[in-house]
């Protein structure tokens, strides 16, 4: 894994030190700050590959920081000690890619950070998996030399699935990610998946999308 620039936002000075050292020990460059204000300033300047964000900050709520960084396409891993599951869900909808609950083991944190950095491709233009290559910005899907142009929602759906192989996305989750607040008719996601699978097969390759019974969809 190429070294990345990680922004650590944590108000506890000792925890900040521990996380910084551990990340630096695995070869990453770390900028550590105490407040949401500093974090926003740095992250909005660019050059950050991942933000480790404490949910409970002295000045701005962590969720607010995540919300303001939502357009930056920087993966955010939340650090939380709050018992309220709801706030964490809120965090995920605000744009956080993942969360780690305090107290945590350093290895767990490092593992999550690595997964999210690897998935960084999710925010990039080209995603490749299982013999498929998707260039999301022009909505073009290649399988070898064959290519197809996808409608916008299908391209977004496939980008999500391809950039997280093995992860199960529930229908509700996909709906929330594709539509945000204004939820569509009930079986729209099924229709998209069905169309997508037909398009992939028509390119002459095996379709990697799988329906997990009662749980959602994944890509193998």
């Amino acid at each position: 894994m190429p070294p990345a620039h990680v922004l650590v936002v944590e108000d506890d000075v000792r925890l900040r030190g521990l996380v910084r050292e551990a990340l630096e020990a695995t070869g990453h460059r770390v900028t550590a700050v105490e407040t949401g204000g500093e974090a926003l300033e740095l992250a909005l300047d660019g050059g950050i590959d991942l933000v480790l964000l404490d949910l409970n900050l002295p000045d701005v709520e962590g969720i607010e920081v995540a919300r303001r960084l939502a357009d930056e396409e920087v993966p955010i891993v939340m650090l939380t000690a709050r018992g309220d599951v709801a706030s964490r869900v809120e965090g995920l909808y605000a744009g956080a890619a993942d969360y780690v609950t305090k107290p945590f083991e350093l290895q767990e944190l490092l593992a999550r950070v690595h997964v999210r950095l690897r998935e960084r491709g999710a925010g990039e233009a080209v995603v490749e998996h299982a013999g498929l290559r998707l260039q999301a910005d022009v909505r073009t899907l290649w399988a070898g030399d064959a290519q197809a142009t996808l409608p916008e929602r299908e391209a977004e759906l496939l980008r999500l699935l391809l950039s997280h192989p093995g992860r199960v996305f529930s229908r509700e989750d996909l709906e929330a990610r594709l539509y945000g607040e204004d939820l569509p008719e009930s079986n729209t996601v099924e229709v998209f998946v069905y169309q997508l699978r037909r398009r992939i097969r028509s390119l002459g390759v095996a379709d990697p999308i799988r329906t997990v019974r009662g749980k959602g969809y994944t890509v193998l």
Partner: protein
Amino acid sequence: MSRGSAGGGGAGPGAGASPAAAPAPTPARHLRTRLGLIVLGSLLVAVAGTVVLVDQLFGRAQRASLEDLLQRDLQRVQALVAAGTLGTDFVDQAAGGVRLQFASNAGAVLLAADAGDPIPLAATPTRAVSGERTELIGSAAWRLPSGLEIGTIRMALDVTQADVDRATLRLSLLFAGSLLALLAGALAWGLVSGALRPLTDLARQAAAVDPARPRLARYRGPDDEVAELARALNAALEAIAERQQAERDALAEVAHELAAPLTVVAGELRQLAAARPDDPRVRAARESADELLHTSQDLLTLARGELDRAPDLSVVDLAEVARGVADAYPGVAFAADGADARVFAQPDRLRQVARNLVRNAVQAAGAERVRVTVAGGREVRLRVEDDGPGMTPEALARVFDRYVSGRAGGAGVGLTVARRIVTSFDGRIEARSQPGRGATFEVTLPGWSSQVEAEPDEG
């Protein structure tokens, strides 16, 4: 405000597991049936009473008027005969259900207008049966114009039709009354059913309340006693939810205070132990700190209600996870059969399960006497065996119960958490043990391929 946001989380996608969503049991005795029957029964009794009363009153009045008629006719005949205006040929004119006979003092019928039976003597009007007819009979002295009494005038009034009329009236009353009673009973049944619907609806909602996330019951109906019950139920639920939220808030506060220092202690000791691998005191401190960290994680996982939320599933290799956990406890033996051991699970929680089982076994038996095996396939099995002191059947039966420690040094919370996590992945966990013969914990999860729908139009 905070409760509102918690409710928002509860209403989230998937809605996780709702363990207490049992259907409301149907009562053995229905109030509506009981009330319907009571109304029907009491109306039937009332009808019967009315019929008897009316029948008696009607019969008495009918008889009085008939007796009156008979007496008047007799007196008229007697007066006419005594006045000499009427000859004995009068009897021939008697008609219309009235029989008239003149009998001697000795009782022999001297003159009769019909071929019927002799009419018996009756000083007061009396009922008598003659052939197929029921008659009201009466008699009066037979006097000649000279005043000489030579016998009796006897008269019989046919009352058969009157009896039939009375019976018809009785039957009509009985029929109409019963019909009305039945109608009223059915009406009562229907009305009570309607009135009870909000009540049974409430019962169903109350039975479906998830104790982890009580939600208020919806009530649709008139503002009556049932509405009062609904209000009381909701007030109780609200109080419970408030209390739960307060406990969660307090716990979150404590967790927040403890979480950072705990993470720092465990993390720094791990770094220190890596730098000084030969120092037994550092190793002991590191192990204890890890222990503390893991136990707090288990406790907080339970207390925060995290397991009430649907897990974030990915394809995870259980063999890989178990190997990683076993490696963290030097001395623990690990083996996998090499078959596909991938399952749909949340990786960190699956690790928590494996860690809790292995830690439990190591504490009971020592690392050298613990074996971890993984068998792949359509069902993937993780087995943790130890040669420790084992458990009594009583201890075994309660080993997954919350806050019950299965054996000395064992962490009851860890096993409770393990079971809840395994269940959330649609798997199961079993424990086998005998005193003196160690213990075996086995986790069975559906293999990933069995969870994936067949592709209908592929190939």
